[in-house]
């Protein structure tokens, strides 16, 4: 089984509740490290403007290139649900290896705090919530219900096969576990 996210770009208002809820549940400190971020896209000219938001998080890829890149073997993919996790004790710290995981990841998912020797942190799919039968914190937080989660095959059944969307490029190399409802310019 592979866990994945669903993102309905047509519903996202860029509010950042997901970002803050993720920081809250996972106790991510103030500063640039954010396991869930919201990217902004603007195109066109007044009054025919196109604005779309896109989530930026770890998509728990089928072939996690981050894991291959890590010289310490700190990143592993759980066989039972495909969730990609980092062992922060094994992580060498951003200067030591030059943040190889971040460089390899097509989605800038691996995050580091500003302090020297910062260990990599990224979306853990709120595994502690999943075992309690709860939604991931970001999904629970989204007031427009733009986010959903679940086994990828179930998401496909529910929402279809779309994996491309404005401001998102599906990596055939890593195969991110995400289904999109893209918002396209009129």
């Amino acid at each position: 089984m592979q866990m994945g996210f669903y993102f309905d770009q047509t519903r996202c208002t860029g509010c950042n509740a997901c970002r803050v809820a993720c920081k809250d549940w996972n106790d991510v400190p103030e500063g640039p490290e954010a396991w869930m971020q919201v990217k902004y896209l603007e195109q066109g000219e007044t009054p025919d403007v196109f604005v779309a938001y896109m989530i930026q998080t770890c998509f728990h890829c089928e072939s996690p290139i981050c894991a291959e890149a890590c010289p310490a073997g700190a990143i592993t993919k759980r066989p039972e649900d495909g969730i990609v996790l980092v062992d922060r004790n094994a992580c060498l710290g951003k200067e030591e290896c030059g943040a190889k995981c971040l460089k390899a990841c097509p989605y800038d998912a691996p995050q580091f705090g500003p302090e020297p020797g910062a260990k990599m942190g990224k979306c853990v799919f709120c595994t502690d919530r999943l075992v309690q039968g709860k939604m991931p914190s970001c999904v629970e937080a989204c007031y427009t219900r733009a986010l959903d989660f679940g086994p990828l095959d179930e998401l496909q059944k529910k929402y279809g096969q779309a994996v491309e969307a404005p401001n998102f490029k599906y990596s055939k190399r890593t195969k991110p576990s995400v289904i999109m409802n893209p918002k396209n310019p009129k």
Partner: protein
Amino acid sequence: MENPQHSQDVRIVRATSAFDCGGRCPLLLHVKDNKIIRIEGDDHPDSDRQLRTCLRCRAYRKYVHHPERLMHPQKRAGAKGEGKFERISWDEALSILSDKLKETKDKFGPESILLMTGGGYLASLHSGSMAAPRLLNQFGGYTTHYGNISSEGAVWASLVQYGSVMVGHSREDMLNSKLIILWGWDPARMISGSNTMHHLLKAKENGARVISVEPRYTDTAAAVADKWIPIYPGTDTAMMAAMAYVMITEDLHDQAFLDKYTIGFDKFKEYILGDEDGQAKTPQWAEAVCGVPAETIADLAREYAAAKPAALMDCQGPARSAMGEQYCRFAATLSAMTGNVGKPGGSACGGLMGIPIGHMFRMSAIPPGKNPVEMTGPKIKGTLDIRDRVIKRIHINKLWEAILEGKAGGFPADVKMAWSMCNNYLNQIGNANKGDKALKKLPFFAVNEIFMTAQARYADLLLPVTTAAERSDLTYAWPSGPYYTFVNRAIEPLGECKSDLEICEMLSDYLGVKDYRLGAKEDDILKHMVDQNPVTSKYVTDFDKFKNDGIHRIELKEPYIAFRKQIEDPENNPFDTPSGKIEIYSQRVADINSPKCPPVPKYIPTFEDRNDPLFEKYPLQLLTPHPRNRVHSEMYKVEWLREAEPHVLWIHPKDAEARGVSNGDDIQAFNDRGRVALKAFVTQRIKPGVVCMFEGAWYQPDENGIDRGACANTLTKDDYSGGGAAVMNTSLVQVAKA
């Protein structure tokens, strides 16, 4: 890694915030060792019905446990405004305040005490805006302000047109609309009732066509609008007048509806057709004023008249302008012309969007009694003539001038001391630099606060206040439930903090005011408040369950529709106006006899519009909408929220290019009132000629008087419209690269 949720000493407390926010979202606070360690949202089993909180309350614990919270009483130790303080005891603090109150009353009379209480804490029991008036009424009186910054224009308009402020529909009714016109409304940011955006998205998915009329392409518009019609600020009524012109001349309006339910349409028609002033309000005329192509205006008029039902969603934002009430009256008039008042899928307009269930205006409170200083004034209950309201009170957007000029300036009192709570006035009313002068001149200033806000820095005496997490209370959303919420005390007060009510109770002993203390347990008082409130008691019958759940949801059999009774059975349900009808022409307004208050809604030229000679020097119109990542100026210090959206000035590429400004550049925006420094956000999402910065960032003048915090109100004017609206969206500015 230890998971605190699994440890036994974690309690889950059901609460909400009590911010001055349009939403009121249930929170599950995880509390351990008197600390909130995590937050979850509403756990209603039907996830579609969950009242999901926005990013603000998701960061609630970082606000409650912020390292910069004020923890002890303090008195000033430097110059006024310098922000230097020394710690004192509660005894010393209360002695200072009570001595000042007594001395001022004896020497200058109670009217020279200015009490400033705001909406920063919207709950029933601990709110300073209830507790302090009750105390000072018993003490001998005070002068206070009239009005609130947010909604006076919309309130005035709704009272004129309908005689009621409950002009909203419950939000799910948007699913009944064929056409939704967002006229200045951006619920994605300012929330406007928890789940409002969710319902708007559903309405869109249900097939509604959505059009946004706004100087900005808002996040709401970006999510739902089929079309954006950019318009100049303050000119909404010109476009609306032209829409009325098109409907009248093409016979698209619902004359039967107008005949049956309204009075004064003929007089309105005379104005529209130009019989009154020689100017027909044609789309061509409007185009020159509002910057919307004539054809676009005519198309919208035709579309709005044809789509049944259609919801024109006006709001309070554009009404915060120099003729703001005209916009809400005009919207309501268009709604009557299209027969959309009182109908499912329609909208009454009026800007307030409230329904009477769970509404802030129906909040429980301990009656504060009468203010001895106001006993002799004119009767102002329900008056539409603002001049009567400012005989005994000071308009909220004139506080600084009143302090500086006193009676000589036509204000009701010479202010010798002020006491402020639940508001960061210096930041949140117009003209912060004038506020800086006024607060430096003011002989004594006491402030109840949670943080060292822009205003708190000017205090002579600072009293530390608890957050909503440190007390139990009943809360309400501004506009509507339909639900009631109970705030369960999550943690014991931090430091030496007290609620405003507790401060008043302690102070009553020092003032010798007898019988002020409630002398009952918090929960017992709250139960009493629920039981005594005629609306709440109808719904909340099991107090213990209510407290336990933190919320009582009301199941509406069908969406609540404002004025449904009046429309379905007009014989037995007149409108609460003198004529019993929707008043497109208002005799009460005609009697005010002021050019600022025409009896039918109009477009009126104002100060700092695009025709003001000042426009040459300051050619950009400034908008100051609600921020997303704080509630006005509350939560400003929370880093999680600040990093989610930097404080920037929206400017169109054309205007930016003309000034050599690129995206992300340091810029300054300025006018004769002040100068702010911030970064430019160069975007196609704003009409050329308009700039926008979100209100609430804290005023922080440097030694040259440049506001480095970039508070929007450093640039806004301290004035009000004919209907009493604060003119937060009527300012001309210039922008330059820093």
